[in-house]
């Protein structure tokens, strides 16, 4: 079996009569000479089956001298060769084979060179996936696999599959050179779309562009190309959209796009596919052409969207109490976004906003504002807008926010023992990390009295202070991470690095593109998210599952105890064993509960002790139910359930804690928990609720 690389090399050799040098191979694949030699040996073996010898020259490299007949034979053989593919790509190819009617399961096994079991697994996975995502039923009929369902859904699956298989960059050459230069694409093309002339599709699209006097962006061209490939191959096999599909979409028929498409499509369809062109089919392409993005120039006529964008920007500034910088740019960008967005909303085409979760975490406030604005002032303008689209609007609008926090600058005073020296170091660290804070002066300890709440928001001091009204924090001149995060809390503003959201997203996009160019990415949106986290400098998304937060050894049930302090020590010990806290954490908690009017009694009979402490190494929790109830803390509250929480940050523990608190409010669960003595029962209950699988 040949690898993709060997296939490419062979393809080159077949199509070139002259020598191809070893260095051109090593350069192209960035591999050692040795690996290339190994590849050539595999090729020689493969060629031997066809009785063809690879001509190798010590100096010039390798070549194949072939007669036309031999060339044809080889190309045919290469095509029937099993395809070596990763699991996900294999499934994409299977979808294509099924769609193109080449779908007998046993011949697929041979083509992919996989076992019967693997193929059965693939098929059942496909069944699940197409049923849930595309409402299509995959079943066997006369030994052949077939998709059953609405034609439009079949096309959606088809389009998505091709978008996954053909990379934009590799396909775009077509629009420039009219040539399929990428072996990978060529192979797929020859296998499944031989009856379509790719150049003609490009011509159809360009004809429509000329007709409408527009220019589509690169990624829209790529998308439209694939849509037409899908449409043409469905029509080629006589699968048309039913006339009913047009219901409620009659408006499409009146658009200028419809006319231009009909004209350009008809000529091609009649000539090359020799079939007629029903209205529903023209409308189908129209749908995609309308929602395609045009290059900026073509927006000029669309005053409507510019106006709308402008209104949105002003409403956002007013409601959000923010001032956006570079407004003209934002309005342009927004208008450009709005046009296709409108068509998407109108025709219910959904696109996923991969950044939505991140946005919700960091920009929730603004998302809510945008939502509110749209409900209040743009009712009727945006029909059925969903959270993904709101997310896009928010991204555009927020790109102009320079200071994320609308509150005025924070006044910071710096205090050090003498008033000089280390203070200047501290001042520059602060300015660098928090440009939105203004340092109004450096004071010596005996001048601290002159600082009041009126003239100062926060005092940062290198020494301990006594009797000051203003919130203060003791810090080192360098501001370490811990201190930085403390200042962040105290000032209520985030530090500098977190602000340039748009820069981060742009960097992520670029890296993402680069990686995609050189490697096969299994899960693009996951990679995108993780890159985003990396460049944003935040930690990985929380693990958040029960297994990472706790352990069966941390769940103690129906225990008989006499002292609440011992319970605390014992529960903390469970966390110490998991390396989540130090033994001192228990002391701190006991101390706090004894000396302060604590607020850990979160419901009758239930305590939830936790502190923000350096003694917490990692988020986690442990718990104990007591029978009979113990008397907890100085108030001697009767407590039957103690949940000890160690929190490193506000998110990691959230899912688990949410689950526990939800239980607190459900008498059926608390009653069960009161009498349950089997740890495994509770552990399983936790894991099931959370869907965590080890």
């Amino acid at each position, binding site marked *: 079996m040949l690898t993709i690389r060997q296939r490419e090399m062979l393809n080159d050799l077949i199509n070139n009569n002259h020598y191809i040098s070893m260095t051109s191979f090593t350069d192209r694949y960035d591999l050692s000479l040795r690996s290339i030699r190994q590849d050539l040996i595999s090729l020689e073996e493969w060629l031997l089956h066809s009785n063809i010898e690879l001509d190798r020259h010590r100096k010039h490299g390798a070549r194949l001298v072939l007669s036309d007949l031999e060339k044809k034979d080889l190309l045919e053989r290469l095509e029937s060769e099993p395809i070596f593919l990763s699991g996900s790509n294999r499934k994409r190819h299977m979808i294509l084979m099924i769609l193109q009617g080449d779908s007998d399961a046993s011949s697929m096994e041979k083509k992919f060179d996989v076992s019967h079991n693997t193929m059965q697994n693939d098929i059942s996975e496909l069944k699940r996936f197409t049923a849930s995502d595309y409402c299509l039923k995959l079943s066997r009929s006369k030994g052949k696999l077939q998709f059953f369902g609405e034609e439009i859904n079949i096309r959606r699956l088809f389009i998505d599959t091709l978008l996954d298989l053909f990379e934009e960059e590799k396909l775009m050459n077509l629009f420039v050179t009219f040539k399929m230069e990428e072996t990978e694409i060529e192979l797929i093309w020859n296998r499944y779309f031989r009856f379509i002339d790719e150049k003609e599709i490009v011509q159809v699209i360009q004809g429509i562009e000329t007709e409408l006097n527009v220019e589509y962006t690169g990624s829209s061209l790529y998308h439209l190309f694939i849509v037409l490939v899908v449409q043409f191959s469905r029509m080629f096999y006589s699968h048309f959209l039913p006339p009913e599909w047009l219901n409620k979409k009659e408006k499409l028929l009146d658009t200028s796009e419809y006319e231009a498409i009909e004209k350009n499509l008809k000529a091609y369809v009649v000539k090359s596919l020799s079939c007629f062109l029903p209205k529903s089919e023209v409308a189908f392409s129209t749908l995609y052409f309308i929602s395609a993005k045009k290059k900026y120039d073509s927006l000029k006529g669309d005053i409507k969207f510019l106006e709308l964008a402008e209104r949105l920007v002003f409403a956002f500034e007013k*409601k959000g109490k923010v001032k956006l910088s570079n407004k003209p740019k934002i309005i342009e960008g927004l208008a450009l976004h709005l046009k296709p967005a409108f068509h998407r909303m109108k025709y219910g085409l959904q696109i996923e906003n991969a950044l939505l979760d991140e946005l919700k975490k960091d920009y*929730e*406030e603004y998302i*809510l*504002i945008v939502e*509110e604005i749209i409900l209040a002032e743009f009712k009727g303008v945006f029909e059925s807008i969903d959270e993904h689209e709101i997310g896009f609007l928010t991204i555009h609008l927020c790109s102009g926010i320079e200071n994320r926090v609308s*509150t005025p600058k*924070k006044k910071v005073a710096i205090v050090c023992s003498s008033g000089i020296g280390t203070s200047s170091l501290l001042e520059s660290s602060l300015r660098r990390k928090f440009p939105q804070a203004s340092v109004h002066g450096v004071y010596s300890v005996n001048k601290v009295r002159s600082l009041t*709440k009126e003239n100062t*928001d926060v005092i940062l001091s290198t020494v301990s202070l006594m009797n000051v009204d203003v*919130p203060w924090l003791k810090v080192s001149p360098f501001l370490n991470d811990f201190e930085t995060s403390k200042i962040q*809390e*105290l*000032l*209520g503003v985030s530090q500098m690095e977190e602000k340039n959201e748009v820069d981060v997203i742009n960097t992520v996009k670029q890296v993402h593109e680069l990686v995609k160019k050189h490697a096969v990415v299994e899960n693009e949106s996951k990679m995108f998210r993780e890159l985003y986290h990396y460049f944003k400098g935040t930690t990985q998304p929380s693990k958040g599952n029960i297994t990472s937060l706790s352990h069966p050894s941390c769940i103690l049930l129906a225990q008989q105890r006499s002292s609440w302090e011992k319970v605390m020590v014992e529960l903390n010990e469970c966390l110490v064993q998991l390396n989540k806290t130090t033994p001192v954490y228990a002391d701190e908690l006991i101390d706090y509960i004894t000396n*302060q*009017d*604590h*607020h*850990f*009694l*979160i*419901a*009758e009979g*239930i305590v*939830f002790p*936790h*502190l*923000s*402490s350096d003694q917490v190494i990692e988020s986690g929790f442990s718990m104990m139910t007591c029978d009979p109830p113990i008397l907890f803390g100085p108030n001697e509250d009767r407590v039957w359930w103690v949940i000890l*929480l160690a*929190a490193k*940050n*506000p998110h990691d*523990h*959230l899912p688990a*804690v*949410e689950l526990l*608190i939800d239980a*607190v*409010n459900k008498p059926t669960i608390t009653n069960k928990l009161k009498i349950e003595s089997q740890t495994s029962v509770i552990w399983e209950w936790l894991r099931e609720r959370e869907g965590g699988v080890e």
Partner: protein
Amino acid sequence: MRRVLVVCSGGLGTSVILKVELKKIFKEWNIPVYIEQSDVSAVGFSNAEMIIGAKQIISSLPSQQSVALIPLTYIADSAHIRNTLLENDALREWLDDV
């Protein structure tokens, strides 16, 4: 958009829980809110109209004009939270506005 601040001693535990619960309740009541959470030290920097937290924490805050303070006895008891909120004048006004 109403602004609510949830406070606890460290900004990590109880306020997180409370935020989740309050989100649910306000949604049910159709009151559009933005809920922030923080520890006690940052209260002065917030422009929230209402501060909610455990009674021990709330009682330690300086009284502020034009900000409604709502102390809770049990911060995880959903029924208790609802009742306490409904006893507050400011919140009843919010509800009337809906």
